[in-house]
């Protein structure tokens, strides 16, 4: 059953991903040890790690959350750290005023709303553990604070971003509260909990709800985009979208890949803002000597810096080792997998799974020729295979001169007789050779930017899109075009839009 309104995106209570919990306790409690990633089970990637349709509570999760909460509380209340959340100086184990202050401050940050007096009183009851007459058990003021933290960190109001909203004229549509908007804004743009300023804007005693105003949301979003965490968030989005979040390889090379891709995103999006499409067409890249040698480019002055691609056939992020290493198979490139990557992630075309009687764990079987592309061609000779593979393999063939690590080559590894001419085709859009020409074909298709925006919206709403949400992608696309493809302007426009401040029930739990 689809949601009722096309103008509003459906939402449910989304559980924080492991990365979001880690960032939240880092920012609010000063715990920098990534406790959720150490203790909680891995998130499922579809391709993003925040897909709420995959979140099912289990006994294993509940036990792990309890352990995580204990683990965090112990660290946060170590004598050297506790001043961060306990601002008052307790006069003794039973200092109720100081405890109350801690409950109110920490509770508001962790629950992203202010606590009612009744709620504060409930936590105050924990002070009996600080004051009880029990000589054989060490306990003090901080014992109660620790229990409070453990309870809050296991609370569904911390773990889930619960959006309730208030009724509007349309019975299906709800308007988010200031706190709910603050939370949406912060987790979307910086991947962490709203800071005190956002919470204050959401609801200051007696003042109207500032975040209901689009211009205020835009201003706050602008502030958040200047935060280094916004860069991390954009890097994470690209890593999951383009599939390079944890690519294999040696440590030094991985670090160089990562620095290269990060530098390009930062430059295009933040430091020298230009058309987002420059990410795909950039004529230079940021390398160190290791990576320059890997790509066959001239070494940068000073051991690290920007160098020109020149006439190498490379351009933009599709030439990066990070992206070329993703979607590989058996330590070699897979033309089919690279084709699937381009079709699904860059053009948003669906690719049907192969028929059941095909064993996709294996590359095409050996033929009379030792050459890989001959094997791929042979397996397209059957009409039933060709119907799908003709849409996939020619794309990968056009990238075959670039190996899994982004090295240029003119023949199969170890087979000089198997020449690679790099000729490929983007089905429906003509022939190309190498990443630079592919990027241009993708841009010319008009599909790349739309597909990027569709993924951006998926990341924002935490699930695949409902068909009715194509209208939202249209809106994003017109904002994108009007801003000369500025990613930050597109984000600001989305945040300022009505859609961002509204919700409707997702009928599917």
């Amino acid at each position, binding site marked *: 059953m689809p949601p009722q309104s096309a103008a509003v995106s459906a939402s449910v209570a989304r559980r924080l991903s492991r990365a979001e919990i880690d960032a939240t306790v880092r920012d609010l409690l000063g715990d920098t040890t990534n406790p959720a990633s150490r203790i909680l089970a891995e*998130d499922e990637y579809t391709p993003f790690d925040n897909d709420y349709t995959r979140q099912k509570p289990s006994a294993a999760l509940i036990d792990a959350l309890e352990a995580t909460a204990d683990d965090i509380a112990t660290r946060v209340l170590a004598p050297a750290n506790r001043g961060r959340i306990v601002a008052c100086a307790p006069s003794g184990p039973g200092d109720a005023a100081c405890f109350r202050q801690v409950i109110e401050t920490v509770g508001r940050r962790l629950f992203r709303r202010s606590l009612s007096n009744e709620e504060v009183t409930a936590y105050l009851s924990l002070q009996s553990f600080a004051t009880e007459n029990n000589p054989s058990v060490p306990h003090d003021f901080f014992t109660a604070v620790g229990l409070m933290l453990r309870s809050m960190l*296991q609370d569904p109001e911390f773990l889930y971003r619960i959006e309730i909203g208030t009724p509007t004229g349309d019975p299906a549509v709800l308007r988010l509260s200031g706190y709910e908007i603050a939370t949406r804004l912060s987790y979307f743009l910086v991947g962490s909990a709203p800071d005190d300023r956002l919470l204050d804007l959401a609801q200051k005693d007696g003042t109207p709800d500032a975040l209901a105003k689009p211009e205020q949301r835009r201003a706050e979003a602008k502030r958040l985009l200047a935060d280094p965490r916004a860069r991390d968030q954009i890097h994470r989005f690209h890593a999951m979208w383009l599939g390079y979040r944890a690519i294999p390889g040696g440590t030094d090379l991985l670090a160089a890949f990562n620095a290269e891709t990060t530098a390009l995103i930062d430059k295009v999006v933040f430091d020298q803002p230009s058309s987002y499409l420059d990410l795909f067409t950039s004529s230079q890249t940021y390398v160190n000597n290791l990576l320059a040698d890997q790509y066959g480019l001239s070494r940068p002055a000073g051991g690290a810096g920007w160098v020109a691609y020149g006439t190498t056939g490379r351009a933009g992020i599709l030439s990066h080792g990070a992206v070329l290493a993703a979607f590989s198979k058996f*330590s070699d490139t897979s033309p089919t997998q690279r084709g699937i990557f381009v079709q699904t992630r860059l053009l948003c075309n669906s690719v049907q799974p192969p028929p059941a009687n095909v064993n996709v764990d294996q590359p095409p079987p050996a033929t009379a020729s030792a050459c890989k592309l001959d094997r791929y061609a042979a397996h397209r000779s059957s009409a039933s295979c060709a119907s799908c593979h003709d849409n996939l393999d020619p794309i990968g063939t056009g990238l075959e001169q670039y190996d899994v690590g982004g090295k240029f080559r003119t023949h199969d590894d170890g087979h000089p007789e198997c020449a690679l001419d790099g000729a490929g085709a983007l089905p429906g859009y003509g022939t190309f050779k190498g990443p630079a020409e592919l990027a241009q074909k993708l841009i010319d298709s008009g599909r790349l930017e739309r597909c990027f925006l569709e993924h951006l919206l998926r990341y924002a709403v935490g699930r695949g899109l409902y068909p009715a949400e194509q209208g939202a992608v249209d809106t994003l696309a017109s904002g994108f075009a009007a801003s000369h493809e500025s990613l930050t302007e597109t984000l600001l426009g989305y945040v300022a839009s009505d859609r961002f401040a509204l919700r409707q029930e997702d009928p599917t739990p």
Partner: protein
Amino acid sequence: MKKVRLSRRAVLRGVGGVAVGLPVLECMLDRHGEALAQSATPLPKRYAIVFAGQALGGDDWADNTSMVLGKRSTDKAAFIVPPETGAGYSVTLPLKPLADRNLMADFSLVSGLRIPWSASSVEAADVPAGGAFRDFHGGGAGPLLCGTRSQSASFTCRSATSDQIVAGFNKPGSIGALVVRAQPAWYLSGSSFSGRQYISYKGSAAPVEAQTSPSIVYHSLFDGFTPSDSSARAQHDFDLRARKSVLSLISDKRNRLMGTVGATDKVRLERHFDEIRDLELRIAAMPPDVGGQCQAPKDPGPDLPVGGNNAGSGSDQIATNTGYSDEATRARLLADLIHMAFVCDITRVATLQITVFQSHMNVFPISDALGVPIRADLHECGHNGDAMTRGQIPVSTCLQWHVGHYAYLLDKLKNTPEGAGNVLDNSAIIFMPEAGHGQQLNDATSPNATHSVEKMVLLVAGRAGGLKPGRHIATPQAHPGQVLVSAMQAVGYTKDTLGEVTGGVKDLFG
């Protein structure tokens, strides 16, 4: 022996009506040591599955052909199935850990198992009852675990698995099946477990998430044990009260919160609150008193670090320090906890998934330790091995590593006296590899395939319910589910079916 009058309930301190397990003390047994004296309640019967996410042989390598470090061999004893049937059969390479621990008489090897599939159609509608959808790996998982035919390539079960069925009629307290997994991470970039991490299902498409942290398993099972010295006891009492207060502050707000959220969120959040309530019930359930063989195990300490993704994207490039989280130690720690949970009668059912379906755990560390260094992950070991090492010996070496953990658990159960015998005598413990080594399920033609639900093997250890171990039972293509039916019957199952599979392998009983 002097008999002390002691009712089973007498040692239960009253708590909110939650039934709990108790260790069996010798003074509670009857003269034969086979049942509890006062109530004539039989000794608890335990059921466990130890799972290995791999096949029995390598793609395109016959059972007796291998290459190790470039040297080819035709060692017939590398394949798990011995040539002889009955008792006293020869020890094959994967079974070596069982022989080393003198356990050959304590389990039966059931071979020739086959999950049915249609050779003429790949359509879901044509999958036979209890059969496999023609796409490995996913198609084979469901029928293997729950006996009901699969309908797609997804990793799922369409009915309850045997462990959950047994836990339904055979649980000592509030804890049902103990579901744990040694492999904590998927290790491949760009994808995630997607169902490969489940071997226990409460019903159709209702998987039970496994706990992967030995530390958390330890605390959830044994924190209730009351220490003997008085200051530790005071701390224990304090911690328990504090823990309950922490949780009740959450559950107390349930109704208020549920009154504010929409219908869909109510369903989502109720699921979460239900799990918290279950945790509270588990804590409230009186812990077993330490006594006899039941002793709190050693705290496993903080969990070992989780290894990063595989360094190689396939064979040949595997390094030694990625794609591996010391599953060897994790499996041992989890086996220790299962053992003591059984001994103390906290639970009678457990599943230990050592590696996940289609596992990409780096096998270099484990295979190197066994003298056959394989630079590949477990999945690749079956398909291609590495350039120099492939075929039966490498695959059987990985299998031997899995069997080693099974043997370790059996050995501990066997060396724990209970009644007139030992805990293994009152158990049915299964070893279950993911695949066989027959015709390929996908193309229906290639022989010696890892993607095969033919020539499968299960091991069944223990003597519960009259199981008669110590033999190789070669079946004419029995369904693996039939082996499970017999094992379930050995621990008290009164029906004759598992999903769509009917009947057992009666030879297991002699």
